[in-house]
């Protein structure tokens, strides 16, 4: 092996480690073993990240509300997730008497498995992708679509009106926001010319001077990123779109009737969904594992990927600490009357960008169209209704 710079070695350290582990095995099983090792790595890293995120979320939310957050278990409360895990595991697993036991049992498993599958196509570093699929993006969305069914199964099988209401709201919301999620990703596919996520990252991994060619730094990319973020927040049922699991009115919605380990699985599923959708957003718009400035490439690629994911998670938490919950009609209106038309317009703008060729003209034209549309749609569609004194239909 030729002498490689130390930065490249650190960059590829996991790949090298995997290859070193695999070379003990016979040649026939090596590819299989490599995949198994990758699965094990994913199955360890992301739940660990989930545990860390829960404690950071609670502490961060506390700080935003001028509280301290958990600080009892271990130093600064960092062992809180361990305590939570023990609590969840030792709790009694209650299955409602009238519940459909089989469906009730399968629902959390379907959710977690489907969410885990999405990680298979995410490139988490240079050469660090479990399966480099030609239609990776499609695979990701196919897996994301399967989670909706598990939400329905959980809500329906509980035989509880809050559960079924929460499930119907969740499914309706996820279907409504899946359309803009897909369409905003399509604009990236139009420019990159591939559904493979590794190719999409490579297409962004160029620099002009020291600045990267990330899609978010183009007018259409910025608009698509904005719409993607909104739709992703709604897809993962996070605040301000956490209506389906609104604790205050639906008592956690579709997983009201779950307790103990299955409840923990739903919780895990929600956070893993956040990680995977953040990873996808980083891959599509923020250059995946590529460094933000060209000279920062000495820092390993996987550090960049995970820091982008964690930055996205921080914004999720920040929004949760800030924004109030939307009402059901506001939610649907926002999806179908603002996000969807804007994404469709953005597709047209992307095509324009593609065909106008290099030059400053396309920057001006695309920015102008998008900004104008944003202002106009904001003015007309989303203006606040005039609320006068309350009128009564019968009482006067």
């Amino acid at each position, binding site marked *: 092996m030729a002498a490689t710079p130390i930065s490249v070695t650190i960059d590829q350290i996991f790949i090298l480690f995997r290859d070193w582990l695999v070379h003990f095995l016979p040649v026939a099983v090596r590819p299989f073993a490599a995949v198994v090792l990758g699965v094990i790595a994913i199955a360890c890293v992301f739940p660990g990240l989930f545990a860390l995120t829960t404690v950071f979320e609670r502490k961060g939310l506390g700080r935003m509300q001028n509280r301290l957050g958990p600080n009892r278990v271990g130093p600064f409360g960092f062992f809180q997730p361990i305590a939570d895990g023990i609590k969840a595991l030792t709790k009694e697993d209650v299955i409602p008497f009238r519940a459909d036991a089989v469906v009730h049992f399968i629902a959390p498993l379907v959710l977690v498995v489907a969410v885990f599958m999405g990680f298979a196509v995410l490139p988490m570093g240079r050469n660090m992708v479990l399966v480099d699929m*030609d239609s990776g993006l499609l695979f990701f969305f196919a897996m994301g679509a399967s989670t909706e069914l598990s939400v329905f199964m959980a809500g329906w099988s509980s035989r509880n009106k809050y559960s079924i209401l929460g499930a119907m709201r969740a499914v309706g919301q996820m279907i409504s926001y899946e359309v803009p999620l897909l369409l905003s990703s399509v604009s990236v596919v139009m420019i990159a010319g591939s559904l493979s996520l590794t190719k999409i990252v490579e297409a962004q991994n160029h620099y002009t001077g020291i600045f990267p060619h990330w899609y978010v730094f183009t007018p259409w990319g910025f608009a698509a990123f904005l719409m993607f973020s909104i739709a992703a927040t709604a897809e993962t049922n996070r605040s301000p779109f956490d209506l389906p699991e609104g604790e205050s009115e639906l008592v956690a919605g579709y997983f009201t009737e779950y307790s103990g380990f299955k409840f923990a699985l739903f919780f895990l599923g929600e956070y893993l969904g956040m990680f995977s959708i953040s990873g996808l957003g980083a891959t599509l718009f923020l250059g995946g594992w590529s460094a933000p400035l060209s000279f920062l490439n000495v820092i390993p690629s996987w550090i960049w990927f995970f820091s982008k994911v964690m930055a996205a998670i921080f914004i999720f938490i920040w929004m949760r600490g800030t924004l109030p919950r939307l009402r059901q009609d506001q939610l649907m209106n926002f999806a179908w009357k603002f996000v969807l038309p804007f994404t469709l317009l953005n597709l047209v703008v992307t095509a324009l960008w593609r065909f106008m060729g290099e030059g400053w003209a396309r920057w001006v034209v695309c920015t102008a169209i998008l900004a104008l549309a944003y202002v106009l749609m904001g003015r007309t569609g989303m203006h606040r209704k005039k609320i006068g004194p309350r009128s009564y239909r019968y009482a006067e």
Partner: protein
Amino acid sequence: MSFAFYLIVALTLAGGLAAVLLRNTVHCALALTVAFAGLALLFLGLDAQFAGFAQILVYIGAVAILVVFAILLTRSSEAEQEGVFSKSWLVGLVIAAGVFAVLGWAVLASARALPWQAAAPIVTVRDIGNVLVGRYVLPLEIVALLLTAATIGAVIVALHEKERTR
């Protein structure tokens, strides 16, 4: 024919059978998704990645959800007083069995003429895209029009009926 193939076929057929046989309508819909997933796996086994993932995305992500929504909106999940099968179930069963007999006979009779082996075709998504907007651009446009019409039509059909009858 590997073990995996038989496993997937068993899963698909079991899902399909359960979808038409179970009493509870929601269980039928869930069994249907099992059948869809099995079919998607069969597509993957036939090296049709794109079709397999499209199958999951469209059928499990959209059609199955539509079906369960329809079931809940029409209160079909509540237990039926009478049987779940129609009065003319025997006729239907005979017709279905007859169709299967004809199809199976046709397949088996021509089994010898069918090709044994075929090299796995290397099809990239790029090829599919090129064909879609090249040779098949007219069907693509027609399907787009159909989908738009269907969306509008479904909305109009399911819109709330005016309170004029009864």
